[in-house]
């Protein structure tokens, strides 16, 4: 009787403890117990997707953080076509249209080719505005950042 009881007790202890033990093992098995930006998850786990961040329709001009930074786009650009046929950005920001539209002119550096020749209009390598200039959503930085711009931009 005693023997049977001991056997059952041992079996149940093993049965109860083993899942917890194997869980710990699973948690550290693939990620080495390292917590990433998305927390302590298995690599194969899929997180719940964050809500999409919305671009504000209009905002104040966004200050540059470093000298060579392409200025950010302070307005919504939904539906703007920039392709072989049309460039919606240049409909306001080109030298030709900026005055009438009250928009910021693109810089003359955009007329320069790779070899330094200045063309009469936007250089093909600078035609796709959104390659460098992007909109800014009101999103919280994922990690703390202590970067401060150089003195001249502050």
């Amino acid at each position: 009787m005693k023997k049977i009881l001991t056997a059952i007790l041992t079996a149940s202890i093993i049965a109860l403890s083993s899942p917890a033990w194997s869980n710990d093992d699973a948690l550290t098995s693939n990620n080495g117990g390292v917590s990433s930006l998305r927390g302590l998850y298995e690599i194969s786990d899929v997180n719940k997707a964050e809500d999409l961040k919305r671009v504000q329709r209009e905002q104040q001009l966004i200050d540059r953080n470093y000298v060579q930074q392409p200025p950010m786009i302070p307005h919504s650009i939904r539906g703007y076509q920039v392709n072989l046929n049309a460039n919606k950005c240049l409909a306001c920001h080109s030298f030709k249209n900026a005055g009438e539209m009250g928009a910021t002119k693109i810089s003359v550096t955009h007329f320069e080719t790779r070899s330094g020749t200045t063309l009469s209009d936007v250089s093909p390598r600078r035609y796709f505005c959104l390659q460098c200039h992007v909109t800014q959503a009101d999103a919280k930085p994922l990690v703390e950042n202590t970067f401060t711009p150089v003195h001249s931009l502050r």
Partner: protein
Amino acid sequence: MLKLLKRLWVIMKSPSTASFGFILVIGFLGGIIFWGGFNTGMEATNTEAFCSGCHAPIVKEIRETIHYSNRSGVRAICSDCHVPHNWTDKIVRKVQASKELVAFAMGTISTEEKFQARRAHLANREWKRMKENNSQECRNCHQFEFMDFSEQGKRSVSQHSTALASGEKTCVDCHKGIAHQLPNMEGIEGW
């Protein structure tokens, strides 16, 4: 043949033996069927499925735009912008469109390549039409009188309160390619 026509004329000319009331009822019912059928037929040519029959690639393009998918779920279909809503104007446009049946028979835009080559021509024709009728199809929904400038963006207000308000410009002057991909815009005013 002439004899047959003569007999038909006699039948049409001579008074019927049927009662006046009967003729009225027949005429009334016939009118409903004819008119209903006519309008139903015309409405059938206003559906997206009908337009897609020839203009499939361009009908597809609206899906990315605000007139197809947006926060409130209100949407416009082809005919909302491309066919006048006013009945007489609609008939005029529909008669003009019978010319497009010839283009269909000839296969003018039967392939994607043919369509792309003709896109600028088609777009320019439509912009011209909209400019001439003061963007009537836009204004069927977007009425200037009810625009609240305080709800609009800064950039919108500066255009709407000046050029649009004075009638100097009409919607389509600035709002091109809002439901489609644009053709080559070289030389187009404002681009």
